[in-house]
């Protein structure tokens, strides 16, 4: 499996915003399936829906700045057999319209495809209002909802096609800034599994979204420290692939989780819940610790808030020492 991933951490990887992969995936989904439709709340270009909107104007709806209406119109479209992708910035959707998602999509069980772009502190200069950190928690707590956070644009493209065929409500988180591409066209992707990217016996680095690349870099650095880290990429945060995660932790006995969001309720919360019931082990969670972000350059912010390979490496030492 590992050879399906590019684990070159020398900085020679191509980078691209994850959202670009969504844009390509949606266009392709539109070409393959007539019932795929899309709607956006005045951010068509930013969320990369513009490719689809230009190709299929009759299947595209501009909702205006109205996220409650966006998701609920999506529920109505799904009721009539459409596969609606609806997008905005994650701060506004699901941020602005959680109850509508809960009632008209999850309880109502309509397969609306929610796309939350520009998540995480790496949104950068726009500041805390636009840096969504709670979306994974908000969506993960909802019955029936599937929650995805791809690690790069190639995976996001595959995830978009998989979403179009999935019969459940889905949420997918995307990021604004360029992220190194670590998967290839040959890398497997399905909704559900977690993927072991590199194997190791000493510590499990369990990461999602933009932080998966950081975990790979940390694993390389940890080799120099004599620690063999196993990197587990979790593109599907819900339902969680308990089997793969527990197998890794049984082997390593120590865990670091990493995500670009609040550690409460997101991936870190999900892993801690799973392990505390099934396989207690020393754990450190890398993520935002009960605070908001602020304006700044994306790389500076990630370093400032400890959301990078260096901090994952330090956390790995700390959990390995506790074994």
């Amino acid at each position, binding site marked *: 499996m590992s050879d399906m991933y590019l684990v070159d951490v020398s900085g020679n990887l191509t980078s691209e915003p994850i959202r670009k992969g969504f844009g390509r995936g949606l266009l392709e989904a539109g070409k393959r399936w007539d019932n795929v439709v899309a709607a956006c709340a005045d951010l068509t270009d930013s969320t990369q829906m513009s490719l689809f909107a230009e190709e299929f104007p009759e299947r595209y709806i501009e909702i205006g700045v109205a996220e*409650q*209406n966006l998701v609920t119109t999506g*529920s109505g479209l799904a009721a009539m057999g459409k596969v609606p992708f609806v997008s905005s910035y994650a701060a506004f959707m699901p941020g602005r319209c959680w109850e509508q998602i809960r009632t008209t999509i999850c309880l*109502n069980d309509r397969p609306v495809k929610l796309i939350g772009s520009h998540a995480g502190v790496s949104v950068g200069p726009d500041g805390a209002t636009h840096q969504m950190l709670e979306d994974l928690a908000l969506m993960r707590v909802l019955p029936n909802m599937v929650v995805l956070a791809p690690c790069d644009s190639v995976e996001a493209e595959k995830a978009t096609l998989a979403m179009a065929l999935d019969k459940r409500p889905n949420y997918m988180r995307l990021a604004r800034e360029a992220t190194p591409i670590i998967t290839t066209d040959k890398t497997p992707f399905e909704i559900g599994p977690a993927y072991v990217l590199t194997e190791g016996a000493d510590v499990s680095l369990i990461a999602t979204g933009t932080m998966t690349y950081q975990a790979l870099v940390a694993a390389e650095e940890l080799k120099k420290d004599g620690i063999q880290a196993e990197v587990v990429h979790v593109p599907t945060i819900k339902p969680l692939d308990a089997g793969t995660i527990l197998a890794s932790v049984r082997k390593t006995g120590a865990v670091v989780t990493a995500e670009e969001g609040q550690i409460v309720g997101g991936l870190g919360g999900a892993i801690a819940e799973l392990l505390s019931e099934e396989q207690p082990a020393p754990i450190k969670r890398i993520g935002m610790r009960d605070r908001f972000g602020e304006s700044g350059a994306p790389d500076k912010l990630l370093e400032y808030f400890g959301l990078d390979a260096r901090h994952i490496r330090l956390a790995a030492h700390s959990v390995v020492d506790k074994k």
Partner: protein
Amino acid sequence: MLKKLPLAQLETIANDIREDIIRMLEHAGSGHSAGPLGLADIFTALYFDILKHDPKNPDWPERDILLLSNGHCVPVRYATMAHAGYFDRKELMTLRQLGTRLQGHPERKRLPGMETTSGPLGSGLSQACGMALALRMDNQQHRWVYVVMGDGEQDEGNVWEAAMLAGKEKLHNIIAITDRNNIQIDGPTESVMPLEDLKAKWEAFGWHVLEIDGNDIEAVIDACAMGRAIENKPVMIIAHTIPGKGVDFMEYDFNWHGKPPNKEEAKKALHELRTLGGKIKGEHE
């Protein structure tokens, strides 16, 4: 499809539905009284005349869609569906009990023919927009999407977001009916949060607006027929209704918005409904 019935028979059905609402609510011990009673004429008109539907085939692909946006009024829909033949009337007495298909607020997945899940207010019209857009994409505009909404519900911003979208897209196969009964939980709508000039508001959002007596079954049928003839705009029917209609001590009283009758009150209400307010001697007595 049900056979169309003469007006007098529809009025009798509406009255029977009111009796069932009282029985259901009294048995359940909780729920909303005023709204469902006020809506009985509108729901009778919808299920027994206006809607294209088949109680024996609730998923009929050619059916019209009826959304109940103010989900708390669902007892009137349950009672009307039972009378129309969707399920046995006996099931009405399971309202709000563990394991029932008749949840306190409607859940689509539990009951065939319940087109959506609702309760939290303000989201029905947006769903209607999505449905009407899908019908337009599929060249299915001979099908209609009816939405029953509350008036207090229109405090919700989501309603006006949907109003703008329907107006912009000229979704003329949406016919919305506002149950204008002037009450909400905290009091009269015009003191809680004034809605007037409601007609002018909807017109300003690009809607064709009709105003009727919502307790006049024939007026409801006529307004929907007129609404279907409007080909360039969504249609809003502001239906003036009497909350608690048919039960003298409940009529116009906002205190009956959110509570059921107790045993004594139910007995009194049923007597009044059976005798049409003392005008006739009830045959069941």
